[in-house]
């Protein structure tokens, strides 16, 4: 009975997710499909950061650097910049792998540091990466400096290009739709990996370190290696998202990878509920969609209320966004959908019957 319900929910969810770009396109316009694509990219990023901050409890303020590494790796290997045009299935894993390597490089020397010191070092690391990207155009031009790298090859799956509109099964699929499905696939993969890790021996070790590092040590956990693993995994997700971003945009430049972006992703994780995958999804959805709503809605709303526009919509968006961060945190300091505290208390009774059933078997 219960199993059938679960299947039903899954099927409805799957149909909903598949139909989403068409519904969005029809109801809100194509611009919003693009926003959907970005939401998926942010989800991948936030889930990566969630491993570092949410599971292992390491405050990383330079996380966007791994996104940048992935994006530039993709851009350099698939654009006229270096004249290289490797196929997608080679570049994407390389982007993730390179980001992973950077994660280890950053992690190794810094894991001795206490929380807030780690924060500034990761922040510094993020800035260093950005500055290098900004300036590695001379004496040898590698990154093309502040102009960024353009004309990146569109994503090809075999001979199928996501960069052009296709007609499939009688449906018209423009590039934003196609990318949506590709990103959806990778997002589900990232969610799957997160879930698997969360419920594993490694995941438990991460959480133990987050809860009490000394006790974790006393339990025989090699905290250094396990933390390093968290950095590496988080960075891998970041690199993956970065590669996809570069292929989607066709253009990368250093200004996409500033501190503000790191902070946005951190806000998604913390605001939604650290360490809880559903919470992080909620955080991403809110923080991507809310600003867009504010951007599009604040102008007309002012017109409607006051008859004219006092503040330009962009400023108002920032203002309300900042206020929202403050209010939400004051209202729910553990995030909108905190990990477990509440869940387990609500279902404690449930679990009793469940665990006693398990015990019998």
């Amino acid at each position: 009975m219960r199993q059938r319900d679960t299947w039903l929910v899954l099927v409805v969810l799957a149909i909903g997710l598949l139909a989403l770009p068409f519904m969005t396109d029809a109801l809100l316009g194509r611009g919003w499909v693009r926003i959907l694509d970005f939401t998926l990219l942010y989800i991948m990023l936030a889930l990566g950061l969630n491993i570092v901050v949410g599971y292992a409890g390491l405050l990383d303020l330079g996380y966007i650097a791994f996104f940048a590494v992935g994006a530039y790796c993709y851009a350099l290997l698939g654009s006229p910049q270096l004249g290289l045009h490797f196929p997608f299935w080679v570049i994407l894993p390389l982007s993730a792998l390179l980001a992973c390597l950077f994660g280890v490089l950053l992690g190794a020397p810094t894991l001795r540091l206490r929380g807030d010191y780690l924060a500034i070092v990761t922040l510094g690391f993020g800035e260093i990466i950005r500055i290098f990207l900004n300036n590695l155009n001379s004496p040898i031009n590698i990154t093309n400096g502040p102009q960024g790298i353009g004309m990146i090859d569109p994503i090809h799956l075999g001979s199928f290009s996501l960069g052009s509109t296709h007609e499939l099964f009688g449906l018209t699929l423009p590039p934003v739709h196609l990318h949506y499905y590709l990103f959806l696939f990778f997002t589900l993969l990232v969610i799957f990996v997160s879930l698997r890790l969360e419920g594993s021996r490694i995941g438990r070790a991460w959480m133990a370190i987050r809860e009490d590092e000394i006790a974790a040590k006393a339990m025989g956990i090699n905290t250094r290696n396990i933390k390093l693993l968290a950095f590496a995994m988080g960075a891998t997700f970041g690199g993956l998202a970065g590669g996809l971003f570069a292929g989607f945009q066709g253009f990368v430049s250093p200004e996409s990878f500033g501190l503000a972006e790191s902070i946005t992703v951190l806000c998604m994780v913390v605001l939604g509920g650290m360490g809880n995958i559903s919470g992080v999804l909620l955080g991403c959805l809110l923080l991507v969609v809310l600003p867009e709503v504010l951007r599009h809605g604040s102008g007309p709303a002012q017109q409607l209320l006051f008859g004219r526009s006092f503040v330009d919509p962009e400023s108002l968006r920032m203002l309300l966004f900042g206020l929202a961060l403050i209010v939400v945190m004051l209202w729910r300091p553990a995030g909108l959908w905190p990990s477990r505290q509440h869940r387990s208390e609500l279902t404690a009774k449930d679990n009793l019957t469940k665990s006693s059933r398990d015990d019998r078997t």
Partner: protein
Amino acid sequence: MMTSAKPHAPLLELSDIGKSFGGLSALSDISLHIRRGEIYGLIGPNGAGKTTLFNILTGLYRADGGRFTFDNTEYGGHCKSHTLARAGIARTFQNIRLFSNMTALENVMVGRHLRTRSGIWGALTRNAATRAEERETLQRARELLSYVGINRPHQTLAKNLSYGEQRRLEIARALATDPKLIALDEPVAGMNSTETDSLKKLLRDIRAGGTTVLIIEHDVKLILSLCDRVAVLDQGKKIAEDTPDQIKCNSAVISAYFGIEPAAYEQNSTKLPTARLPDQANHDHP
């Protein structure tokens, strides 16, 4: 897995362990030995250096001098926590340090970390070996929880357990590492007498199961009624190491600990009930 050692062979031997903090000497030249299969007590007034010694033994502090031998392997003054845990020393903490936002079950499962091996690949694929290992971990964790007497739903978050249960959970978590020596830092602090009694029983069970027990306590009456042998620390020095009966009459201990002169103590001690003596005799001469 127990090595085929003689029951009274030393499991842990400390020699000349010293430690000072910013010029203040916390421990000086501590030497003691703990035999396999005994319950060994470490007492002393507040600030005597008991917890410091504990932290050295479990790798949290680096000793200034001295060394110790555990299970026939010699360690210098400092060794990583996880190495010592692997060697078979598990501990609990004076001010309970559970993973408070994890469930009781998960807390114990973390204790199995050391004796399990599956990594990222296993986690992602959930292959047969990983599944078997997880099953075994879960099974063992459940057993340990009921062994220490936590009868609540095992999905309760550690921080929502009662105080006594939290202490027991810490013990279950330590036992999950398959220790040869379990070291308990003030396990009955804040417990009422019923809780204390059942904890005593648990500790005896643990010993009967082949694990050596080292216990630091403030509560002298508990130590004297539970331990096979007792060492007394005062001002960072060992002032006695003996059986509880001998410790009770040791004048240095009495004056250091109770501030009661031996004469006065002896006079009054005749009035003390001696009901628990037979109980102890059992332990001393198995």
